[in-house]
């Protein structure tokens, strides 16, 4: 169906893709595997006409194509569902599905009846009961993926690319998606599936292609490889353990939260963390964990409850209060809340420390460089120089910049919200290593994670939230995936 031959792409001095060749066949799922920055997104962008390749050819059904814009790719039968679907919040679901190609009726007017009914039928085809007249902004993350999928199907695409579609979905929604992919396969569509989750790759894919540093590192039938083979091809080395538990000295209690309550988002939350301890918060997406952390960090008003830091009751009404009290918060959405994308890595990391780096009215440059060197190295950011803009980095490296920035403030308690979301195996290990170093250094870590292996792997204790409340609490000795998952789902 799709033949990609010796595809290369340069951005200025950076070779993002080099001589990559692969094939996707009708009725089969091709897994596209690689670390962040390995070139997966670049391939997707070349295939969907957003970037044009520097050299190489793309053939669809043996016809060579030069995509000038996204319209061309769509006309050739290629459609993609982005990792974080970028949709139009202020218009309806139906209009989102047909944006840019609304059905026309008399005299070139938009045929709204046809728009709604066609939208309805595509949504039904994927078993979704979203009303076409709903405004996009009222949809949950999972529903946005469904609309994105409906959009892809409505173009009658022959090749559908799924770019990490399950990152934000619950278990039930993921199973629903698998069903849809199986149906698409049966209907003879070719599918490219990008994922960092190995169980998923082995469940859904028939073939695989591994990329490393923009080059092809391996390909073949999924039935003929093991997880360890794939990891070895991805990182070029064996990873003995993905979730190492670092043993740290557990000290005195530094943060205690009691009866924490918000009018609509969470109620009656109580917990405590000690020095050297990693306290995990597990739950389904939308259980209220992020909202709780934002409440603690002074980002939203709460109606009841107290925060005690190092034995002192403390009132936090702003992030400045929180930072002064020794709290740091690494948010989930690194692009919107964490990193300042147009700034360099250097300026991002030194940002919260500028006060200490001041020499008179100037910034002490050598001290800034030392600080940035220390913390950027500690989370092993991959970049051409610390002057590179954060917007030019891959997702994993952006997250490392955000973590590095907060490490630089030397907090007592650090709240990490989904620190490894959308990050590849190699960087995950580096992030976990960094978290281990934090607790060894006597910090207390509050870790919000939706990834069960991670939450169980590195936490000392685990709180499970559902529907805005803590529904269960476990010590490490009592960890078991079955009970934790049941608790997280049982709060409904």
């Amino acid at each position, binding site marked *: 169906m799709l033949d990609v031959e010796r595809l290369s792409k340069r951005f200025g001095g950076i070779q993002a893709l080099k001589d990559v060749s692969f094939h996707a066949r009708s009725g089969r799922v091709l897994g596209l595997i690689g670390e962040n920055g390995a070139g997966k997104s670049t391939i997707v962008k070349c295939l*969907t006409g*957003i970037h044009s390749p520097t050299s190489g050819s793309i053939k669809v059904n043996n016809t060579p194509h030069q995509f000038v*814009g*996204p*319209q061309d790719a*769509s006309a050739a039968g290629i459609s993609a569902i982005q990792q974080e679907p*970028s*949709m*139009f*919040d*202020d*218009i*309806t679901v139906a*209009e989102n599905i047909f*944006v*840019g*190609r*609304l059905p*026309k009726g008399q005299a*070139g*007017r*938009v045929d*709204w009846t046809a728009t709604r009914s066609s939208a309805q039928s595509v949504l039904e085809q994927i078993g979704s009961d979203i009303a076409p*007249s709903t*405004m996009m*902004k*009222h949809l949950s993350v999972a529903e946005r993926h469904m609309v994105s999928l409906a959009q892809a199907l409505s173009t009658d695409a022959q090749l559908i690319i799924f770019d990490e579609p399950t990152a934000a979905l619950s278990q039930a929604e993921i199973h629903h998606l698998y069903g849809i992919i199986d149906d698409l396969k049966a209907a003879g569509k070719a599918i490219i599936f990008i994922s960092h989750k190995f169980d998923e790759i082995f469940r859904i894919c028939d073939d695989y292609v591994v990329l490393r540093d923009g080059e092809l590192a391996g390909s073949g039938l999924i039935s003929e490889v093991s997880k360890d083979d794939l990891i070895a091809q991805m990182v070029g080395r064996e990873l003995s353990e993905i979730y190492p538990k670092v043993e740290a000295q557990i000290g005195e209690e530094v943060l205690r939260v009691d009866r924490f309550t*918000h*009018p*609509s*988002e*969470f*109620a009656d939350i109580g917990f405590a963390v000690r020095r050297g301890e990693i306290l995990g918060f597990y739950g389904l997406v*939308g*259980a*209220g964990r992020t*909202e709780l952390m934002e409440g603690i960090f002074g980002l*939203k008003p709460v109606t009841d409850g107290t925060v005690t830091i190092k034995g002192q009751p403390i009132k936090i009404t702003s992030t400045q209060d929180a930072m002064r009290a020794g709290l740091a918060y690494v948010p989930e959405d690194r692009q919107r809340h964490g990193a300042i994308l147009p700034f360099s890595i250097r300026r991002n990391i030194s940002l919260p420390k500028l006060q200490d780096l001041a020499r008179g009215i100037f910034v002490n440059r050598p001290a800034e460089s030392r600080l940035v060197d220390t913390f950027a190295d500690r989370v092993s950011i991959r970049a051409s120089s610390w002057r590179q803009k954060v917007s030019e980095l891959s997702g994993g490296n952006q997250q490392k910049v955000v973590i590095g920035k907060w490490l630089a403030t030397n907090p007592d308690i650090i709240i990490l919200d989904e620190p490894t979301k959308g990050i590849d195996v190699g960087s995950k290990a580096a992030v976990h290593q960094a978290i281990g170093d934090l607790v060894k250094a006597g910090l207390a870590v509050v870790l919000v994670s939706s990834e069960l292996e991670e939450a169980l792997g590195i936490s000392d204790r685990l709180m499970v939230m559902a*529907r*805005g*409340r803590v529904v269960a609490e476990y010590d490490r000795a009592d960890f078991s995936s079955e009970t934790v998952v049941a608790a997280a789902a049982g709060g409904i």
Partner: protein
Amino acid sequence: MRRILQEREAILAFVIALILLGVTLRAPDYLDGSSLGNLLSTWGLLAILVMGQLGVLLTRGIDLSQASVLAFSGMFLAQLSQVMPELPALVFVILAIGMGAVLGILNASLITFAGIPPIIATLGTMTIIRGMIYVLSGGAWISSHEMSEAFKAFPAGANLGIPNLFWVATVAFILFWLLYNHRPAGRDVYAYGSNPDAARNAGISRLKVEFLVYSLSGAAAGLCGYLWAGRFAIAYTQAAEGREFAIIAACVIGGVSITGGRGTVLGAGLGALFIAVVETSLPFLRINPFLQLAVIGAVILIAVAANALTERRPGRQILPREGQS
């Protein structure tokens, strides 16, 4: 969302009705023939400008040059009526729209080709065009007796007892409503403003969208230039100076978001009506004439602030609602 917007518009209409009621209770002659005509004409002029601005705001831009385009068009056409007194009103209308559209295209070119942010680009053209009026007129005014009769008759006239300005604005309202609700080009404006990157990926051309909205904004301003000069029977260099505030405020009060993607033609029309009511009712309430401008500004700011407060996002509903298990 459509439901909430319509609710918002209903609330605004209700507030306007309340103000009208309050004013007529205190000054029963406010809704008499001639002053009602004054309200409708004031609304007409402002509403056309506001509907032109709507599209620009939807694309996350702003057009600050409208008042200058208005004054320039009024001056140029008034001079033309001196030279060619036999020209009929329709020619002035067409010329006004065309000239405004050309100036709008100039704005769009600066923004799309030269990559200048809309606020800077239109601030620049606002100043240049205002300066060109001095070049054109040498600083002189053109007053009533210097204009041709045909020039003045249409903008100051009425049909069926209702001012022509109202009729023109009504036609414009219908055209804008059709464009933004029923034409693919108009819907592309919403998609573009809602998410420019995704819109480009969906094959919506930034060039087309921006040329459309800025030329419409310019055309609306050009048309109003003629209507303004004819209605007040004067063309002068400072005409409509500072009107930008009322235009943008009307949009915001009408629920148009300056961050793009959100706003309706009906809302824009109602926002203009709110301001027109406030402006025309103050003299009837015997507010000190020297205070009126400040009062208008304050009322508009209060209305915009009230709007901003209702825009605040409430928290998400995560906890089970009461009575639900």
